[in-house]
């Protein structure tokens, strides 16, 4: 574009008004500026063996300690995992898993005993994990209506009541199709994600050595992102504050057993702002994933949150996964500053650091040899 100032004449073939003789008056000499003469100051690192080689060593020296640190941190995290899918005949949930489908309305309960070898000191996070569940499928990911979840009352109504109203967007987004409405009644919450919400109930009991089974208190709030709970997800605000009334005229998703306004008894954790629901709505990135289910708060400083011993997991088995060879797990884990247990990053740092260091050595040797040869060549010339 800049070029056109001078190409103008050539392009257009116009006659310059000043005439050719004008050259004596007009000076076409380019300006002597750093920009136009391409002499802009620029940092040009002189890449020689002298500057390239140390970079390898420095990276190596930084990465290896970081990696060791990360590895140790990850190893200190305690994690316990139990698979309760029940496709194994020996599994306590085998009976529940067998022949279970979405159509079952009566839930099946199974109890799984397990043992913790180590005490869990700090807050323990309880996850449910699913495998082979493609929450990241393209059509699945799209199948939601954020506006509806944000409390937009219009997304909960059925359009076409009046021509004026139908012009506005007054029903669940078409992205929710085919889970948008049933019999012309909107589904709340609409879409395939909501429809397939995880609905197993997990309970933990500590089997006291004296034989009694003590239920472990599970906190069901604080498991979703703060911004999700308070900004993104909102219950529709109708004329009255009763959720049942607000969701009047909507139907529950096909696979749900209860309508959305009966998810919890706590009004702060009910409807769209139910945290289990919010957590589920954050579609997982990979087909094997876990989602935070409950938090086991540390009660006092003296006793560990979960002491060593025997526990029982009681599952209300509602969620069928066998049809797609999925697996269900329950995970108990403590957490560090860098998240859950994952030794990978530490190993990665150590590996990259070592490779760098090794390459540095190799290059140094090569350079040393080559440099010598080069010097001798110079002398001979």
């Amino acid at each position, binding site marked *: *574009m*800049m*070029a*056109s100032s001078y190409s*103008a004449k050539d392009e*257009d*073939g*116009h*006659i310059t008004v000043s*005439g*050719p*003789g004008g050259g*004596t008056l*007009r000076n*076409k*000499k*380019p300006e002597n500026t750093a920009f136009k003469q*391409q002499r*802009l100051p*620029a*940092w*040009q*690192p002189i890449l020689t*063996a002298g500057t390239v080689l140390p970079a390898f060593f420095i990276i190596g020296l930084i*990465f290896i300690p970081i990696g060791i640190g990360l590895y140790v941190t990850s190893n200190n995290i305690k994690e316990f995992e139990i698979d309760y899918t029940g496709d194994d005949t020996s599994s306590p949930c085998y009976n529940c898993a067998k022949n279970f489908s979405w159509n079952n309305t009566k839930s099946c309960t199974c109890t799984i005993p397990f043992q913790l070898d180590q005490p869990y000191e700090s807050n323990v996070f309880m996850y449910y994990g699913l495998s082979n569940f*493609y*929450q*990241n*499928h*393209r059509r*699945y*990911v799209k199948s*939601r*209506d*954020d506006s509806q979840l944000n409390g937009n009352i219009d997304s909960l109504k059925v359009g076409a009541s009046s021509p004026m109203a139908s012009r506005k967007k007054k029903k669940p*987004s078409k*992205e929710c*199709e*085919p889970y948008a409405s049933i019999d012309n009644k909107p589904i709340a919450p609409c879409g395939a994600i909501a429809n397939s919400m995880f609905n197993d109930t997990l309970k933990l009991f500590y089997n006291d050595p004296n034989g009694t089974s003590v239920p472990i208190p599970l906190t069901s709030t604080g498991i979703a*992102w703060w911004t999700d709970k308070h*900004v*993104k997800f909102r219950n529709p605000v109708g004329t009255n504050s009763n959720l049942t009334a607000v969701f009047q005229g909507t139907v529950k998703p096909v696979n749900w057993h209860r309508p959305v306004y009966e998810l919890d008894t706590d009004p702060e954790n009910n409807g769209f702002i139910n945290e289990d629901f919010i957590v589920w709505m954050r579609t997982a*990135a*990979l*087909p094997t*994933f876990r989602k935070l289910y409950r938090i086991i708060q540390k009660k006092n400083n003296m006793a560990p949150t979960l002491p060593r011993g025997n526990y029982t997991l009681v599952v209300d088995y509602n969620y069928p996964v066998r*049809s*797609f060879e999925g697996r269900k797990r329950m995970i108990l884990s403590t957490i560090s500053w860098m*998240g859950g247990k*994952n030794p*990978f*990053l530490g190993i*990665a*740092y150590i590996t990259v650091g070592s490779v*760098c260091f090794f*390459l540095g050595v190799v290059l140094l040797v090569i*350079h040393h040899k*080559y440099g010598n040869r080069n010097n001798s060549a*110079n002398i001979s*010339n």
Partner: protein
Amino acid sequence: DSGKEESTWRKWNCYEEDAGMAKAPPAARQRKKKPKENKTRTVHANILHDCAKGDENPNRHYANNKIKTTKYTVLSFLPKNLFEQFHRFANVYFVFIALLNFVPVVNAFQPELALAPVVFILSVTAIKDLWEDYRRHRSDKEINHMDCLVYSRAERRYVEKYWKEVRVGDFIRLRCNEILPADVLLLSSSDPDRLCHIETATLDGETNLKQRQVRKGKSAQTFDPLKYNSIIECEKPNNDLNRFRGYIIHRSGRRDALYKENLLLRGCTIRNTEEAVGIVIYAGHETKAMLNNNGPRYKRSKLERQMNVDVFWCVIILLVMCLFAAVGHGLWMFQYGDNRPVFDVLSPEGTNLSPIMSAIYLFLTMIIVFQVLIPISLFVSIEIVKICQVYFIHQDMDLYDEETDSHLQCRALNITEDLGQMQYIFSDKTGTLTENKMVFRRCTVAGVEYSHDANARRLAMYQEMDSEEEETSCPSTRPSAAPWWVLITALQSSSCILYPNKPPSVLQEKDITPDPKLLDKVNDCSSQMDFMRFHSQPMSQLPSDLSDIIDFFIALTICNTVVVSSPNQPRHKVTLTCSGQKHQFGQTSGCSSLLSSPSAESTLTKLHEEQPSGGLEQAFSPIPPSYDGKTSWNLDEGELRYEAESPDEAALVYAARAYKCSLVGRLPDQVIVELPHLGKLSFELLHTLGFDSTRKRMSVVVRHPLTDQITVYTKGADSVIMDLIKPPDTGRKTLKKIVCRTQHYLNLYAADGLRTLCIAKKILSKEEYACWLQRHLAAETAIQGREELLFESALQLETNLHLLGATGIEDRLQDGVPETIASLRKAGLQIWVLTGDKQETAVNIAYACKLLDPEEELLTLNADSQEACALLLEESLHYIQAKFLCSPSGPTTKSFNTNFSPFDIYSSSSPSSQSTPFLVHRLGLVIDGRTLAYALDKSLEDKFLAVARSCRSVLCCRSTPLQKSMVVKLVRNKLKVMTLAIGDGANDVSMIQVADVGVGISGQEGMQAVMASDFALPRFRYLQKLLLVHGHWCYSRLANMILYFFYKNAMFVALIFWYQFYCGFSGSAMIDQWYLIFFNLMFSAFPQLITGTLDKDVSAETLQQLPQLYVNGQNSEEYKPYMFWMNMIDAFYQSLVCFFIPYFAYADSDVDLFTWGTPITTLALFTILLHLGTETKTWVRNLIINIALFFTVALCYNASCPACYSPSNPYWTMQRLLQEPLFYLLCFITPIAALLPRYTVFSLWMSENTSLFFKYL
């Protein structure tokens, strides 16, 4: 003539009636009607038809003079622009993909969003077009509103009108220095000889004045528009500047033919003529100037051709990836059988798709998702970068020539990078290597050589002076060198602009120190003639050698087309009235002072009063410049300036003037020459047979005023003239001797590198002349085949000539030519010189400019026949093989290896095509035009090439323009190399057009070469910086940029591809669709543009000091086919790292899709930018700026709306990520791990390369 009176009367009546209708016709004119399908155009004077209704004006069908070069109007802009943009295949592709998004089953992105990049690209281009169009509009407006004088019948005088109001058939009055608004047929001129001078610099760049004349047939003394009633019939508008045919049909029915000499073209400037009146023939877009306006040239560069191959590969990769994903999806679906999992959502209609159908749909979806792989912004980016590059080349101070105030012009905007890949340079000699400023050096008259030693000494002195001046390089303060009148005219030029002065060239051409011997002889001879004339003795009694001398100078003076102008009063031609009519000669004894009897024909037209005192300037101008009186007194004839079409003509005229034999005036039918003792003589000019490249000579036929004989003076190339000399056996014995001696001296001149010309004459008897004249006139008036007939007629005349002498003219080498050639050669460029000059001259110039080395052997190929040529080529091939190939340890080769390592490097490191067995030897090849013709034959061209390519330098002499282009074409096509042709004259045009890059030298020989070229340089030596620095930069920048674009897109797309393995090949993307779509446009495009424009891998100084670095571009080392694949592999590796490190780091965690995708995007961006960092040799801060930009955009975007941007809905994602240590840890390790291999290879290369680099130093 009663009819005329009547019509006048009628017109006036009309005027009375229609006074109020004056404004009607323009409106009517606008009406578009189909012009009559005639082969000719008939122009009536508007004056007759003003009164008629607009519809009846016979000129109404012709275009008016309003020009509109804009492409669009306000309304048509959008549709038309879009239509044009969709002609580009890439745009159609992107629109197709965007539209595919609107198909519900397929859609991958939000359809509206998917349109965004296409709309962006289209609108950027549209805005660019709009802006250019607006600029055109403004300049159109400016031009349309220029003033000119148009005759208005209403006011009975010339009134000022805008150019756009001029229409065909209008009478226009033109004053000195005005620009012509349209193509005008000259009807009257204030010039007594009814001439009008125009300067055509804006059309062809030639600054010499050209004469145009009023049609001879019409003899009205004062032109009165009201009385004009002829009709003009002429050709339809066409773009041939040198052709115009037509008739004036007078009332009486008489037809007068019109030629191009009668037409003034739009855009030219009236010079030296006080006033001219004409009728508009072609207006506006139908003018020849506008029809010739072709706009910029578009070529496709080598790099782009390479790139397109790789774009094609990208398409293949894209399809393979899509196919893979589609098959994968089909299988994934298939494994679930009829049992649909809960996450496999039904289509919106609730139907269940079969695996095969969904695979097919997925294929389309994947094309959309992976569309980034075909670099959408690459085409736009390349264009922008090239424009910036052109801008910087244009701004380079080193390519600016102060003397001519001109700088490099890039006429082709899109082949800048080709400059960095040249392998062969084909250069013209004259005007390219040399200055084309001709200086008369020596001459031979009648077999006697006059060496002009003093002249040579003085020239040498000038040369020194010049070089000193160049060191100080301050030409504006050159008072000592510039003649005083130059300064004066420069001062005066503020009011009335003159044609550009060329002080240095004028100095060189006109200051000739005569050879004393010859000067004596001239004086002697002319005094004798004077005496004889006084005593009425026949001139034939003069001794033949003396008469030869005087004839020699007369020939030099008149046998040309030089126009005389007076420097102190340059606006007006010297109008000389001296016209020594032959019949008056006897009575008016001595024409010593100004002869005041003008030719009978033009007496009456001369309005001026003659000045008996012998002043040359006529008080003709009604606006006498104030300085006129002061300066004209101290002028003698010596201060006349000569405007010549070719510089050697002027040099000869100046030379003759040094011998007091000066040309003082030239009129269409006579030439006035002032001779010592004889005074001013007027030669009646009967015919001028112009120069053409086939005849290689020109002739004038004059009636000699002293002898009253019809004399033919011929001047031409020695090779042709020598063949036309009358066979010596019929003449005297001495004649044979003279011819022999002259030939001898000619050879000597050529050996000195001088341009030689032979001068000959022929005296025609009255009968001979009459006989020839008859045929010639027939030829002249012939309508068909006129040119051929004239050519034959000229051939008939130019026979049996009498040799007068020969001249040697020096053409100085341009500054810095040897150095430039040396360094271009070091850069591995093969330089061939193709010249029309004779062999000896060419060889000498070649030695002078170090093209040939005295130490190297010269192979000279001169053959008379095809067989001889074949034999010669065969022999030379054997010779070369015997000498150089079979004895690799021979002494020659050894010395070559040690002393000329650059060539060694070049030849060994150029694997380009089959050139491996052909090493470049220390050999020079000289071939002449005739042999070249044989060698270019199909059967011999391979052998010729084999010989030529093994020689270090090739020199083709005596080659015609066609041969030049054939040589270029041959080398280009057969050797598959990049060729550059450089030249300055019209004879180089074909060669310039054939070559990959054509360079024109905007020098002395007009602008034809420049018009045809891609780049125009003021001087040859600028080629060095243009190629070695700018060429290298442009090439390396663009090559790197293109590779980087491929890499970047492949890397980004591959991330999504890997993800398909984890999302059931469902076409899902973890990268937010906004990032995905705008990634190319925003985050990664800008730094690339900046480095593409400003990156410098090596500094300009180093590039010039080490021309060897140019080899890099010649061998396309920055962009080789394998590099594309290397980059692709690297891209895939890097994307694997960028994908799997986050994958494992977040494996089996509660991360959600886009919280996981955002770090991947970030990492990919980091990696891509760091990659650019290693590629970029000069780090500009833009990388950091870009990362900042990304985070700013991401943070704003993620905070903007909690419920929008479905499906990613990225509210607060980035903010949350920034709180996590894991994110930073990933950012730290991933780019390093990704770039590790590249960096390792790079540092290995570095340690090797630096040592190579130092070896050169």
